[in-house]
């Protein structure tokens, strides 16, 4: 169910602009890895290279290797569509399909992946996914209502349900709580704790406490200056990063002495 990610020598470009430079790291299965760092250091860009979403941007280009267990996502002949079916993604702004009902939103990915599927079977998957996203109790009586009618926090959990419905190996989250209120944020943090039993999770967050609360490992990214590519400064156990990081820049950033 969950796979190890092994990145080596990865750089990503927007046209001629190099956004991240030579990143290597390993992400263990069934763990939560948090990416922290100042704005513009390439956290989102790096995250999007992990499911080949980066190349969707016009001019987007990647060099290097991303191994998912023993398959190179950037190997020749690898279909990006199938990569994205294996590596799910949750975005910063909740983005349920506005024209679809709650049920249809969760079923959307399965309809793509499986093609034909029996209604009873689909009902089961939808229920399981909504339960998995801690949303079932709130929406079970209005599955046929538009997903866009839910609150922001519920919409984000709906997006998580939609992503896990297709049983991905890895779940990528790009600041999933930054558009949410504190209560909804807490609900999603709890959810992440439950989901890591089943998935490898990578989460970008601006919120240091959140990284400390939810993650097992933390990676700190930084950039030398405006226009420079972002770099991975260090990755280590979260406890260590927040108590005794090995690089001074990390400590400065975490203690707010970042200039």
């Amino acid at each position, binding site marked *: 169910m969950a796979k190890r990610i092994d990145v080596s020598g990865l750089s990503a470009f927007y046209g001629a602009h190099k956004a991240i430079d030579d990143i290597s790291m390993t992400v263990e299965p069934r763990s939560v890895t948090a990416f922290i760092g100042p704005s513009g250091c390439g956290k989102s860009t790096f995250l999007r290279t992990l*499911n080949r*979403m980066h190349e*969707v941007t*016009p001019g987007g280009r990647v060099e290097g290797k991303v191994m998912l267990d023993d398959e190179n996502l950037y190997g020749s002949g690898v279909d990006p*569509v*199938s990569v*994205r*079916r*294996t590596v*799910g*993604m949750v*975005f910063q*702004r*909740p*983005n*349920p*399909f*506005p*024209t*679809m*009902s709650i049920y249809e939103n969760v079923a*959307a*990915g399965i309809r*793509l*992946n499986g093609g034909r599927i029996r209604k009873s079977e689909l009902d089961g998957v939808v229920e399981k996914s909504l339960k998995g996203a801690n949303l079932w109790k709130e929406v079970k009586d209005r599955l046929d209502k*538009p997903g*866009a009618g839910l*609150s*922001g*926090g519920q*919409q*984000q959990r709906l*997006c998580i349900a*939609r*992503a896990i419905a*297709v049983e991905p190996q890895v779940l990528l989250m790009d600041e999933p709580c930054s*558009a*949410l*209120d504190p209560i*909804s944020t807490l609900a999603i943090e709890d959810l992440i704790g439950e989901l890591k039993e089943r998935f490898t999770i990578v989460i970008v967050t601006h919120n240091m406490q959140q990284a400390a609360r939810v993650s097992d490992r933390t990676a700190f990214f930084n950039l030398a200056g405006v226009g420079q590519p972002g770099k991975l400064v260090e990755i280590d156990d979260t406890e260590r990063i927040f108590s005794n990081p090995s690089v001074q820049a990390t400590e400065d950033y975490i203690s707010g002495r970042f200039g």
Partner: protein
Amino acid sequence: MNDMDIANSAPADRPPGPASPDLTAAQPAPAQGIRTRKSKTTVRPGDRIFLGLSRGSGILLLVIMAAIAVFLTVRATHALSQDEGNFLTTFEWSANTDPPVFGIAVLAFGTVVSSLIAMLLAVPVAVGIALFISHYAPRRLAAPLSYVIDLLAAVPSIVYGLWGALFLVPHLGGLYGWFDTYFGWTGVLAYHDGAARSLFTIGILLAIMILPIVTSVSREVFRQAPKMHEEAALALGATRWEVIRMAVLPFGRSGVISASMLGLGRALGETMAVATVLSPSFLISTSLLDPGGGTFAQNIASSFKESGETGKDALIASGLVLFVLTLLVNGAARMIIARRKEFS
């Protein structure tokens, strides 16, 4: 027609959750003492002039509209009171005889049928081209292609008419013969030789004429499909076509409907091209391929010059019916769009 604001008000960017709690707090409190009189806002001469101008032109517009409506209604009523036939069901247009006998049955049939054929042919093609430009074509190709399509809209309709009469009509006979061989048994697609100056030919011509407007409006709507939903589909492992099906077409649906209605409006009222190509007759043929039939606009254009007083009034009456038809089409489009509101 405010098709574009229908498109804009459509789905999408409802900002999720509390956008930013301190947004309201960030706005500066109104400074004290700048305005002393509370209810009275400052009015300068410019405001007064602008207000007068805009109010004046609004009223003028309404007066002109009312005058036109009164004029047309009076003349039409005059014609109807003289009509010896049934205005709705008579298959004849002899408005200059004494007594005059005329009815719009053939015109209504021809107008609706030729426009429907045009829609059936044009809308799928237009949506296809629009999607190709907005989501498939590389930018180098998309820009010139959009330009050429837009250029098609600038061709005067008489040119389409000439092209239809000189090129389309002679070349469609073969196609119609083929239709007749395989689908002649339906009756609708039977063809008994003769020049292809039929309602179906008109339909094809109108389809080409409305293609640019339907394409360019659809294209703009598809372009505005929110990136965030396209990315949502992509991240689920959707192929390009699946992204379009999940995130672009549902978003663009109301826009495509209004684009089609714009096209339909043009097709219903098209005059010169139809008058140039059609060989009019006051019969309703069961076959759409056989020559004959007529449309409101074509009939007005063809008979106006030779008409006497009553004949002209009769044509005005038929013009009013066309106007009502166009209104109904618009109303229907609005209803279709409104029905989908909950999900957009």
